[in-house]
Each structure stands twice: as structure tokens, then as C-alpha cells.
């Protein structure tokens, strides 16, 4: 049923604004592929190019090696969830969902069955005879979702399909999408602003910035081993430190500006003395007797953990960071700290990431460049 | 007239292109008449003709201008057979659109009204008149053109644009000859004064004049006899005045359209319309004067002898039509 998607050197311009300069990706057959990136980076645009709604200023789009630049959208057997829902205001919820099946001349019984099922899945059965204008935002969004999934397309394109749903519902919808997707084997391209979501459901994630792909990788890889500072800071929080590569007796390591050293065996061989940028996530610190001295500037409760915003010596950290954070797991934490208190932090050597000084390139072993 | 339309299977309207349109066809049982005359005017005559000849007559009614234009445009494939109406001076320039035919009753026609040109069979005789609303006229006395210059009448005179209405054009001619004592060009200084008294008001159609006077929108109107007579007969508060300075009386006509599809019937109709009985009906029922020697004017109409009948120089008039119209127009625009 489904097929792989190939994009070669795609270019997109609006007027004289170039939104996508030169983009290439390979999406595997049946894969759940997520586009993640700051607002305005070109996610929707790319999606619409794959769908066939945007003119293509350059490059080659293909389904299963077959170039589709010239194939009209309706012949591509895609399903699409639009960022603005785009549900038909003149049709009831049910009619909206049936729409695609009717076109496929599906046999009545089977159609009813399938529509009922999907309506149940997205929990809007009870509204099936309402007109969209009488639905809440989230309900509308679920109609759009159902309408796209129900036709079991080869390629499912979703533009923030869950952005208006609450966490609980979102998790349910997620797995619903996931199930259909797996069982029918739909190649899915998913746009979201929600990292947790991306991390949770994607087979692979592509992180975009300004129309350029920064990294394509499995969720875990993306989070633990970002290719560059942008990715590391965009996905999850990363505290950025100045560092210098130093030679220790037991291998090489990095030294922070306050003198603290951490020796790493994950580094590619970098000549000692090179300046680097070190990225440490809030949870990659541990409390200890010695290490980096930190003062609690602010604390935010975030459910299962507390985030402390820290004061550190200016010269240690890269300028322009909104905050330096240390997160403490609440499940087990024995002692909580108050604003003003101080403690020592030790980075977890196996976790932290080291980048070239300009932050463009990771210096961690086997972080490959085939993105 | 419309009543007849349901039947007539082979009615010109559905003429299909294969047939050669211009071929004369004697077998046809119907006749299409283009006619601007009022229904109650047409009906008696037409129904009479239908009963006599068993020919279905279909009347296409519209303004004289529209009908003339139709005849002109349809020249290649005429849909009408007869054009019935329009004063001579209107039709003369378009004579070539019409078939030569001299009616069977030609000898009975007054000498003034003989068909010398070929296509132009005279139908009735129509003097120009002034129409006066007796409710509004008060004690203002109107005997003729001269009185129309009275300041009391300023802006209360209904005159149609001569370039739009034939009856009004006839009046212009009438004016020029009456006030110029036979020399049209002399008449213009009157026209000049007269136009001033119109006070920038100029109606855009013959009917607007008599209707306007009858409705009391205007006090005096310059129109043709039958136009006003009708209202007199219907008992409207109006009376007719025959200009003391002189009245020109012109006939209007009835003509066969070139290549008429029902040529035979057309001719038959012309013969009928000029026949004594038809003309009598016209005089008795339709407030018009006959063109025949043997049919006197209706009793209630001022006999022609009592009017100051004058004549224009036909060719000169035809020759000057446009110059005069433009001149009138220019004078009017200047005020």
C-alpha cells in the first residue's frame, strides 16, 4: 500500500523570499517521520510540496523512486490534516469524514463501518450530525484528523494535527494514529511543535531551521547526541558552557572556566587546547560535594520534577542563554532547595555533549554526518 | 393580435435556413405586419381582413423606429411582410427597403395622396395640431404658433425632440413654412423664440406629448391630429387647435417589405386597407381622415376646408432634413 518518499534538492520561493533553499530527505516506506522546527522554518511549506499544493521552484519529489512533480495532488493518494483544519463548513461531521470514502466509491456497509470506527477512535461520534461551526476547536481538529486517516492513504501528511488537544487526548490520538499507521502501513509525515510528541511517536525526526535540515535521526539519538548546538538547544533544554579540551592522565576531557574538569571517553580525538562549547542538559547534572558552584535563582514546579534556574559565574557560560537549568527528579529527591541556596553540580560525563566552539559540529564519537 | 400566435406552424419566425428566404410563396396562409399603431386601432381592421380572407395576421408591435430598424436589419431574411405606419417623410429616405406596389384602389385616392414613388401607398391623412389641456389653460388664449410665445406658457409646452419624433418633425416643418410665410428659412427666428419658451424642456417621443398634455403635465402640446383626437374621443380634458398661421397635413402610409415571404397576402392586405369599407371604419372608429375621395372626414372633426391648409416643398424638405434638425438642435442646446 504505502510507499517511500524522496525529496532531492527541493527549492521553494514565495515571491523573492526563499523559504527552502535546498532540501533533501529520504522517508522510508511505512515510516513515521516527523518534521520539527521553529515556527516559520518551512514545515508546512515542505508538507504542502509533498502533497502537491505548492508550486515547486526546484528539485525532485518522488514516491517509490517515481518522480511525482507532475502528478496532480488528487492522484497521489495522500491524506492530509491541515494546520487550519480546513473542514468543510457545509457538511456535517460525518459527511466530512465520509467524503474521501465516497470518492473512492466504497461499498456502503463497509464505509459506514469504517466511519463509525474512526469516529469512535477520535471520540466525536456524538457530534457526528453537527455542523462544524457548532464544535469546539479540538473537536474540529479531530474531525480533520479522522477525515484524513479514514481513507487509509499511502502517505499521511499531518500539520500539527493535535495542537489543540489536551495532553491526555493527545496521547490517545497519538497512539490511535500510530495504530492505524502501523496496521495499514502508512508512510506518515508529521509536523508538530511538540517535542515530547515527536520523541514519543516518531521513527525518525528531522529537525529544520530556516528551511534547512539540521539533523535526521531516531528520537533518542536526536536528544542524546545532537549534531549541533541548535538541535541540542531546540530539543529539550541545554546549558551551554565554554570549555577547553585538556589532556588528563586517564584520557582527554574538558575543563570549564572555573577550573572544574570532566574527563570524557566519548570525544573524537581533538588536539588539547582547542576551545569548545559544552552542552549539558538540566538532568545531566548531579549534586555532589565538589564541582560547579551554583546558586538557585528561581524554581519552577513542573509536575514530576522541579527545575531550578541557576546563577553561575558569567564567564563560564555562553552569553544570551535565557536560563541555566538544573532539574531534580521529584519521585525520589530527598532534599529540595530554596531560592538563594547554593550547591555543587557535577556533569555526567557519559551524557554531556561537546561541540566545536562555533557550535556547528558535534565532537562526540560516531555522531555521523549522513543527516 | 397576440391571440393568433399559437397556431401558424409555418410562421416566419421558425424559418429554417435551408429554404431560400427570398422566394415568393403564394400558398402561405398568414401575414406578418409590423405596426406601431395602437391595438384598438389595428384590431377592427385586422379582424375584418382575417374574416374576409381567412389569412392569419400576426401583428408585431413596437415603436416606429424599432420596427424600421428591424426591417432594415432583416433585409437579408425578412421576417415581416408589411410595414404599416410611419409618416412619409420618415419612410421616404428608406424607400429602397420596400417593394413597389400600386393598390387596386389607386384611382379612388385623392390626387394629393397618389403613390407616385412606387412603394409608398398612402393610408390616412394627418394634420399637425396643437393639443390643449382645458383644465390648465385658464384664460390664456391659444389660436396658433404665435400664441405659444406667451410668457405664461414658458416651460409648459410639450414638444418632442424633432430628431426623435416624426410628428414633432412635421411640426417643425409646419412652423417654418407657416411662420416664414412660405419661405422656410424665414421661419427660423420664430423657432428661435419658440425654443426659448420651451425653457429647456424637450420630450423624447411622440406619445410623451399627447400623454403629457392629457395627464396635465403640460398645458399645450405639439402633436398630430389622431394623437389628440383619441383623447378628445375618450373624454379627456383636452381640445385640439388647428394653427391659424397654417396647417400642413401629411399622409402616413402602408408598405410591403422587400422580398416579403407572404407577398400575395401582403398585396391583398394593402388592397383591403385602401378599400372603401376599410377607410370608412378608419374614419368612423379611429379618429382619422381617409385618403379616398369618397370618404368624408368624421363629423366631429373640423373639415379641412375650414383650416388654413398650407403646403411645404417636399424635395426641399427632404434635402434639408439633417441641416434643419441640427440647426434646431443647436439653437436648443444654446439655451
Amino acid at each position, binding site marked *: 500500500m504505502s510507499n517511500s518518499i524522496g525529496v532531492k534538492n527541493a527549492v521553494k520561493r514565495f515571491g523573492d523570499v526563499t523559504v527552502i533553499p535546498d532540501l533533501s530527505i529520504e522517508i522510508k516506506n511505512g515510516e513515521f517521520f516527523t518534521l520539527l522546527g521553529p515556527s516559520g522554518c518551512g514545515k508546512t511549506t515542505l508538507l504542502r510540496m509533498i502533497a502537491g499544493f505548492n508550486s515547486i521552484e526546484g528539485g525532485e519529489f518522488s514516491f517509490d523512486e517515481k518522480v511525482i512533480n507532475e502528478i496532480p495532488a488528487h492522484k497521489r493518494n495522500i491524506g*492530509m490534516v491541515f494546520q487550519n483544519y480546513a473542514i*468543510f463548513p457545509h457538511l456535517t461531521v460525518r459527511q466530512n469524514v465520509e467524503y474521501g470514502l465516497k470518492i473512492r466509491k466504497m461499498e456502503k456497509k463497509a464505509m459506514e463501518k469504517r466511519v463509525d470506527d474512526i469516529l469512535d477512535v477520535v471520540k466525536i461520534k456524538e457530534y457526528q450530525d453537527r455542523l462544524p461551526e457548532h464544535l469546539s476547536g479540538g473537536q474540529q481538529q479531530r474531525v480533520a484528523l479522522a477525515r484524513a486517516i479514514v481513507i487509509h492513504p499511502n502517505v499521511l501528511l499531518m500539520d500539527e494535527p493535535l495542537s489543540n488537544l489536551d495532553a491526555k487526548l493527545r496521547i490517545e490520538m497519538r497512539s490511535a494514529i500510530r495504530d492505524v499507521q502501523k496496521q495499514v502501513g502508512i508512510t506518515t509525515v508529521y509536523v508538530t511543535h511538540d517535542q515530547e510528541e515527536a520523541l514519543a511517536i516518531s521513527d525518525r525526526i528531522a529537525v529544520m531551521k530556516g528551511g534547512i535540515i539540521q539533523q535526521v535521526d531516531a528520537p533518542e539519538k536526536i536528544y542524546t547526541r545532537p549534531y549541533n548546538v541548535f538541535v541540542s538547544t531546540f530539543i529539550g533544554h541545554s546549558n551551554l558552557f565554554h570549555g577547553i579540551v585538556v589532556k588528563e592522565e586517564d584520557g582527554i576531557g574538558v575543563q570549564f572556566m572555573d577550573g572544574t574538569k570532566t574527563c570524557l571517553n566519548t570525544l573524537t580525538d581533538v588536539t588539547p587546547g582547542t576551545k569548545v562549547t559544552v552542552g549539558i542538559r538540566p538532568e545531566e547534572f548531579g549534586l555532589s560535594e565538589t564541582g560547579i558552584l551554583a546558586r538557585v535563582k528561581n524554581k519552577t514546579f513542573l509536575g514530576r520534577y522541579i527545575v531550578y534556574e541557576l546563577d553561575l559565574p558569567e564567564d563560564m557560560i555562553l552569553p544570551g542563554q535565557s536560563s541555566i537549568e538544573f532539574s531534580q527528579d521529584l519521585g525520589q529527591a530527598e532534599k529540595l532547595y530554596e531560592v538563594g541556596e547554593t550547591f555543587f553540580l557535577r556533569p555526567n560525563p557519559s551524557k554531556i555533549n561537546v561541540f566545536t566552539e562555533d557550535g556547528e559540529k558535534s565532537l562526540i564519537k560516531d555522531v555521523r554526518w549522513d543527516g | 393580435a397576440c391571440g393568433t400566435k399559437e397556431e401558424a406552424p409555418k410562421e416566419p419566425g421558425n424559418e429554417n435556413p435551408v429554404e431560400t428566404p427570398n422566394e415568393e410563396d403564394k400558398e402561405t396562409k398568414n401575414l406578418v405586419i409590423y405596426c406601431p399603431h*395602437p391595438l384598438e386601432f389595428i384590431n377592427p381592421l385586422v379582424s375584418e381582413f382575417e374574416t374576409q380572407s381567412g389569412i392569419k395576421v400576426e401583428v*408585431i408591435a*413596437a415603436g416606429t423606429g424599432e420596427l424600421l430598424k428591424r426591417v432594415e436589419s432583416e433585409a437579408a431574411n425578412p421576417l415581416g411582410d408589411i410595414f404599416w405606419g410611419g409618416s412619409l417623410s*420618415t419612410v421616404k429616405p428608406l424607400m429602397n427597403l420596400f417593394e413597389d406596389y400600386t393598390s387596386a384602389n389607386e384611382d379612388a385616392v385623392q390626387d394629393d395622396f397618389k403613390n407616385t414613388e412606387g412603394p409608398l401607398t398612402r393610408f390616412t391623412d394627418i394634420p399637425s395640431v396643437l393639443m390643449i389641456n382645458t383644465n390648465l389653460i385658464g384664460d390664456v388664449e391659444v389660436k396658433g404658433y404665435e400664441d405659444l410665445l406667451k410668457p405664461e406658457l414658458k416651460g409648459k409646452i410639450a414638444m418632442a425632440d424633432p430628431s426623435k*419624433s416624426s410628428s414633432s418633425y412635421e411640426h417643425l416643418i409646419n412652423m417654418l413654412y407657416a411662420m416664414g410665410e412660405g419661405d422656410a428659412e424665414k421661419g427660423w427666428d420664430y423657432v428661435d423664440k419658440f425654443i426659448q419658451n420651451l425653457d429647456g424642456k424637450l420630450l423624447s417621443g411622440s406619445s410623451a406629448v399627447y400623454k403629457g398634455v392629457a*395627464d396635465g403635465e403640460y398645458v399645450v402640446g405639439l402633436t398630430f391630429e389622431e394623437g389628440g383626437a383619441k383623447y378628445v374621443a*375618450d373624454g379627456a380634458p383636452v381640445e385640439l387647435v388647428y394653427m391659424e398661421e397654417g396647417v400642413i397635413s401629411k399622409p402616413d402610409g402602408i408598405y410591403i417589405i422587400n422580398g416579403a415571404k407572404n407577398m400575395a397576402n401582403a398585396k391583398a392586405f394593402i388592397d383591403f386597407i385602401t378599400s372603401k369599407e376599410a377607410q370608412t371604419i378608419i374614419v368612423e372608429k379611429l379618429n382619422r381622415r381617409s385618403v379616398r375621395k369618397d370618404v368624408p372626414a368624421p363629423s366631429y372633426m373640423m373639415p379641412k376646408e375650414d383650416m388654413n391648409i398650407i403646403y411645404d416643398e417636399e424635395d426641399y424638405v427632404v434635402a434639408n432634413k439633417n441641416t434643419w434638425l441640427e440647426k434646431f438642435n443647436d439653437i436648443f442646446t444654446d439655451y
Partner: protein
Amino acid sequence: MAKKRSFTFWSGVTLVIVLIFTLFIVYPLLSLFVSAFRDPETQAFTLENFMKFFSKKYYMRALGNSFKVTTLTTLLAVFIGAPLAYLTTAFKIKGKGLLDILIIISMLSPPFIGAYSWVLLAGRSGVITTFVRNTFGIELGSIYGFGGILLVLTLKLYPYIYMYTKGTLKKVDASLIEASESLGCSGIKKIFTVIMPLITPTILAGGLIVFMNALADFGTPMLIGEGFVVMPVLIYNEFISEMGGSASFAAAIAVILVMVTSVMFVLQKYVVNKKSFTMSSLRPIQAKELKGWKNIAAHVLIYFIVFVSIIPQATVIYTSFKATSGAIFVKGFSLESYRKIFTSLGGPIVNTYKFGVIAIVIIVLLSMFISYLTTRRKSTLTNIIDTLTMFPYIIPGSVLGITLLISFNDKPLILSGTSLIIIVAFVVRRMPYTLRSSAAILYQISPSMEEAAVSLGDSPVKSFFKVTAIMMLPGVLSGAILSWITIINELSASVILYTGDTRTMSVSIYTEVIRASYGTAAALASILTLTTVVSLLLFFKVSGKKEISL
């Protein structure tokens, strides 16, 4: 790519349309325009006609007059129509349905009759005039001349704006208005800062319609002009006055008219394109209850306007029951007029509606396609088509009628005397109404709707019919109603083209009018009005719409 995608279908449509147009618009009009540059006698090329026009004060004055009347009428129509539409959409007004019907009725004042009833009312011896004179001793300004024409035209034309605006207001998303309120904006301010801009495209479209309608109308100035000459009257006379004028000169004037309007049209198009934006409305505006004096004021205003504009119709109906003696009305009432016309009624009615229905169907289809092409598939060709559609609209109907007659009265294509030629005339003359409103509403439908349909596997064609078309309907229909009404009242072209068995109601009315038998004319007119209203009500029953204007 979006373009390439549906290349085949839409270019097919374009092709068909181009064919239709070249045959029934370009070809006839071209021959007309060409004759404008011909010397009537020698047929040689000449600018005579134009020089004549521009050299003579008389004609220039006509041009000036036309402009004065037209522009003012357009403005007034907008100032009355748009607010009216807003009030009736945004607020609960008692008897809304009735109002809509009345407004529509006021639109179908048959030629001449409408203006004539104004003479009966406000003429020098008109009912109102004499009443005021006798009771208050005041002389009202007469209905004749500039003022009168302005009044009559405005009242006749504001409903167009009303209908169009109403159609669009239904598409405005309520949350936009709420947004402006949440920002502390209300009342007039809100209207000018949000609502006005949103409906500007429509108002411009409607304005253009009114402009052209006023520019082309000659019935009214004919009757109450009294020397206040306007362009169409000129053309009419030069072309068809019984005194016969110069056809080529008439053509020249027509050309000038067309030029003027083309300019207006292009201007309007340009502005609309600049102002265009898409809105997808999920929550239409809900009518609110007005409170206190505002409520009263609104009702009074609305009912007053509607009342005034319905007067002519009322008069017509009234006079149709008046007793007559020959050509003049006398005291007392009778059904005489009706009896007179009764026998000759059947045919015209059948014709009117037969032709009407066929024409309107064609119109709706064409309009939808053309408007879609010109808004979503912009190209020079489509633009040309768009502009072309407006030409027949501004050439006085009779002139158009004659050009058609001349063009199709000879081999290879003889249409003269057939029903087809009348239908053609209807379509080309009355399409602009539907076309304009369709275009206007398309500007407000978000393309993503159609994309959604396509993403579900609909071919662009299907998705057009199943989604875009349906969402267009409100606009299309509000325009179609206008087309319908004006078709039913179409006279000036049909009077040239009709034959015995293609006679329509308005032709019958007209023939009564030129015979100065206004009683019967009024009777016919009343019946026409009645049947029209019935047809509309029927339509709304069928289409299941609650309100008249959609």
C-alpha cells in the same frame, strides 16, 4: 503546479467559453464597433463620427450628464444599500423576510411603467404634488430632469448593492467582529475599520454593476428626462428613433460608452485584486437584538426606505385596477384592464419563464466557471474574458438586439426569429450580475478547502463542484436572483428580437405602453410582478433557504 494540475479540465472550460464569447459577444460587437469607424455612405474608414461627437456641445453635455447621474446614483445606491444590508444581517429586524421580498419586488419595476408611476405620483399634476400643493401650498420640485432621474435610478438600483452586500456579510466570520470588539471597538468605528474593508470587494463589484446599469438605462431619462439628455438616449435615437439617425454615429457613441466602462471595470478589478484576501468563516454573524431607541430608529429607517422604493410598484398595481376609458384613467375601479389582456396572456408568460429558466441556468454555470477562472486561475486570457463579459451589459439593449439581429440573420447561422437568439440576448446581457457576485465571494473562500477535497482524492473538477461551488452558492444565488429578475424584465433587446411566438411579458407590456394604454400595461406588469414573486418563493422553498437574500 497547482495550475498545471487541472490543465486539461479548466483549459477545456476556457476553450468552450472563449468559443461562446467570440460567437455571441466579440463577433457582433466587433461588427458594431467597426461600423463606428465607417463612413455611413462610402463605408470608408473615418474618425468622422468621433469628431462629430466631441465637437458638439450637445453630445458633450450628454456625456457630462451621463457621468453626473451615473456616479451620483452609484454613490447613493451604495450609501443606502450597504447599510441596509448590514442592519438586516447584524440585527434582529422584524419582518426581515417580508422586507427582502419587498426590496426584490421594488427591483422589478418593468421599463417605463416604473418611471411612469413616478410621473403619476410626483409629476406636475401628480397625486403627491397636487396633494402637497393643495394642502400646504408648497410647490415640490418636479420629478422631471436630473433630480427625478437620480431619485428613480437610485431607488431602482440600491437593491443590487443590498443583495450583494448581504451575500458577503454572511461569509464574514463572527470572530473577526468579536476581535475588534475585544479591542474596544464598536458601532460606527467597528463598521469602518473591520466590516467595511471586508466587504469592500463586494461593494466595488456591486458598485460597478450599478454604475453600468445607471449608465445604460435609457427608459427613465426617456420618460422624465425633459431635455436632460444622456448617452444611452443618444445612442437609442441615433440608432432607432423613427426619424432614423446615423447607425455608425450611434456605434461611435456606443464605443465611447464601452471605453468609459472598460476603464471603470479595469480600475475596479485592480483595486479588488489589491484588496483581496481570503476568509474562511466557520461561525457566521448572528443577528443581535437591538435595544431601545436604536431598535426603533433602525426599524423606522429600514421600513421607510423600503416603503419609498416600493411606491412605483404599488402605484402600478393600483392603477391596474383603475377604470379606464380608452387611453385615460377615469374615476372608480374595474377589472377592465385585466379582462382586456386576459386572452393574450398565456403565450407571453410561458415564453418569459421558459426562456428565463434556460437563460438563468446557462448564466449560473458560466458565471461560476468564469469567476473561478478569473480569480483562481488568473491569466491574461481569463482577464480578457472577464472584461468582455461586461461589454454587452453597457450597450443599450436595443442596440445589442440589433447587432445580434444583424449578425445572425444570414447564412451560415440564422437565429433571427428563433427563441435561441432571445435566450442569447438574455444570457449575455444579464450574466454580469451573477458573475460579479460569484467573483466577489470566491475571493473570500479559502483555497485550503478545495485542497482538502483534493487531498482526499477528488479531482480538481469534482472538488470544485462539491466544495468550492457549494460554498460559492450564497454569492452566486444572490447574483442569480438579480439576473433572474432583470431577465424577466428584459425589454429593449427582446423588443427587437421577438416574433409572434417568442413574445415575452415585458414586450407585451411595452407594446401596451407605446400604445399609451397604461391600464393594460399596468395589469400586465402586476401579473409579471406576481409571477416573479411566486417564482422566487418557489425557488427558496426548493433550495430550502429561509431568507430571500442568501
